[in-house]
């Protein structure tokens, strides 16, 4: 009977070794693939300052290369941004991704309101909530001006944020 006990013990130990050989790489493997798709914030020159019509939001696509795991795509649209130049010339930029669940926010000229078609969220021109299910206003992006060959260009730091929560938290 002592032998039997000893062997049971051995089986336990050896079985644990076997399980570890599988579990450790298995967990490492699975967890590391979760890191995929983190976007670093980056600056994009979107428009000449003079070309923007004061008071009217305009949508601009963010064009960049996209890397999806092993595939690298040539440049193409990866998102878009609403740019508004106020009468006094200050620039505001909003991500066009809806902070509710990530649809694309639209703007109908004349309406004076941003509108998301998915669940009817509406926003003021300054990004604040008017009505709808969203928990925060539109996500504002940092802007700056840059002189390129004598002309003022609007630069935007494009970023994506976690949808569905009240807090504005960068994705990743």
């Amino acid at each position, binding site marked *: 009977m002592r032998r039997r006990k000893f*062997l049971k013990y*051995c089986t336990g130990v050896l*079985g644990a070794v076997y399980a570890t*050989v599988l579990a450790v790489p*298995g967990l490492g*493997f*699975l967890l*590391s693939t979760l890191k995929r798709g983190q976007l670093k914030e980056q600056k994009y020159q979107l428009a000449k300052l003079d070309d923007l019509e004061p008071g009217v939001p305009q949508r601009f696509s963010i064009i960049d290369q996209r890397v999806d795991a*092993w595939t*690298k795509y040539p440049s193409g649209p990866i998102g878009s941004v609403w740019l508004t130049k106020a009468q006094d010339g200050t620039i505001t930029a909003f991500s066009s991704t809806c902070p509710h669940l990530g649809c694309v926010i639209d703007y109908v000229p004349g309406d004076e309101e941003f509108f998301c078609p998915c669940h009817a969220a509406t926003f003021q021109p300054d990004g604040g909530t008017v009505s709808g299910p969203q928990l925060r206003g539109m996500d504002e992006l940092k802007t700056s001006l840059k002189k390129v060959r004598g002309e003022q260009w609007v630069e935007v730091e494009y970023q994506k944020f976690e949808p569905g929560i009240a807090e504005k938290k960068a994705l990743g």
Partner: protein
Amino acid sequence: MLSEKTKQWIDERTGYKNFFHAIFLLNFPTKRRSRWQNIWGGALVLLMLLEIVTGTLLMTVYSPSEAAAWGSVHYIETQVDLGWFVRGLHHYVAHMMIVAVIIHIFLVIISAGYRKPKEFIYWTSLLIGGVIVGLTITGNPLPWDQKGYWSYQIETGIAGTMPVIGSSLRSIIVGGSEFGNLTLTRLYTIHVIVLPVLAILLFTIHMALVRRDRLRTMKIKEAADDPEIDFELDDDDPVKDEITQPYWPYQTTRTLVLTLILIGIVILQMVVYPTLKNQHVAPELAEWEMDMPLSEIKLEAPAVSDSSIPFIARPEWFVRFLFELRHMVPKELEVLVTAVLPGVLLAILIMVPFYEKFFGEKWGQRLAIAVYVGGLVIISGISWYSVKTERSAPDYALKRSQEIAYAARASWLAKENGVPPEGPASLLRNDPKSMGPLIFARHCGVCHTWNGHDGTGLNIMEMKDGKKVKATPRASDLAGFASKEWIAEFLTDPTAPKFFGHLGSSKGGDAILHGDMSDWADSYVGPEGVLSKEDIEAVSALIAREAKHRNAEPLSEAVMKRGVSVFSGIDFKDKSGKVVDFDGYCAQCHAMKAGDPEEEGGGAAPDLNGYGSDKWLSDFIRNPGAEHFYSDKNIMPAFEESKLSQHDLNLLVNWMRGEWRRPEEEK
């Protein structure tokens, strides 16, 4: 863990204890005689379990399509934490399982495990072995690398030679007549669903049969030991030797020990193999700088289906003997070897239980052992011979080095650029370093050489007196073309074998061989000639500047001036430093703005403006007989678009000029 009471509570409602006993053989009686023999089956089960777990992990990343398969496996190897370990384990444990099956069946035969009433146990184990081989064959091509791709070509080819059903079978497996996306999706389906399900079914039947047999033995023993029952066993009855010891924990411990040893060997193999794999490799043979160290190459190059990137197809080791036998027999008998022979081998194994019918127990078993061991020895012998002849072939090291070099190149490009959406093959197809030598060998290597070989490292051969010998080149050696050194060497002796030396043999070549350029060298270069070594070097450097080579150094003022004086004849100083009239100046025949301020010359010989540059080389290759090149003295064929596409021409020119992305530039 759970308290005894809870266990009891659950068991009363589920009967789980019995269930586990049945599944995990907890009370499973084992034999005394063969405690260490019977563990191979158990180890195979544990290895299979490991394959299922690692396989499932790989499935979370792997993507079965032509454009994505290689990239996803490369991603597993290089980006996923411990991905190399999981994939390595999955790959090598599969091979280890084939070895284990071979040993297991051998042990079954020597312990007469096929004897009545155990025939079906034996047959199911043979079938399971077959499924494991099938899993390895279908798993190997999944990365869609050169190795997997081409060995699968051979294997499906072999399947296709089967009489009657062969060709339809092949197109079902391949998904049409050509390899492509459907081949991969089918391969994947067979590998992850069809064969595993089959294996589990067979395994269930196998275990049910084994269990039935063990319980039967136990009953007989109990009856024999029970004094109340009037039943005695014969003295030589094998059941006498059996003890009814439960499988758990007595056999489980041994099974685990063996399993861990096998896994240990596999892990050792994984760590050591990269160096083993590359031991025949000598990249310097192909004058190829590896883009990454050999030990970092995790994957063969991506499959290039039009075979523009060379790769020698080799089948998996366990079907290698079929492949080799095919070469040994006359063509008409090929079908016998590839389709009939495996069937015959299988039949011989299946028939083992019947041998004893004809030869008696003792001799029947001996025959079975002899056939099994003999078969293994012959098969290993043939495989060993096959590997040996391949490895000792004269170009093996060179060709294998090239394959590894392409693997390194593709991996490096994928790491730097990512895999383009159109697939990993385009990494190589659009790369001057990869394609240049091949294009050169195909189009230029007929006449020209590159450092003496055809660009890829192979010698250009020709038949002479029925023997294959190194061919005499018919035109110049182009390695270093338009570089300072190359030009200086040319000017010093244009009729050297490296340059115009062999032209005499070709039509019209005589005119060049004894033409103006060689006369010029005869009259002006050498100890007697008016040109000094410095003069030659200066004018060479001046001309070489036209090519705008990637790491050309800027010329000093003095060299420039001296070069211009040689080229244009203006202000020319002889060896003593005196300004003299020089009538051998280049601009008489060649045009080149940089060397000839008055731009008066040129016309009679090739235009040297932009000599060796992209444009010059492309234009020249397209039309060497143009007015501003060799004109009517030209003997080189023109390579028009129909012969050499623009894409290939660009790759060729960039390669000749050494224009490709290199690892050191990244730093």
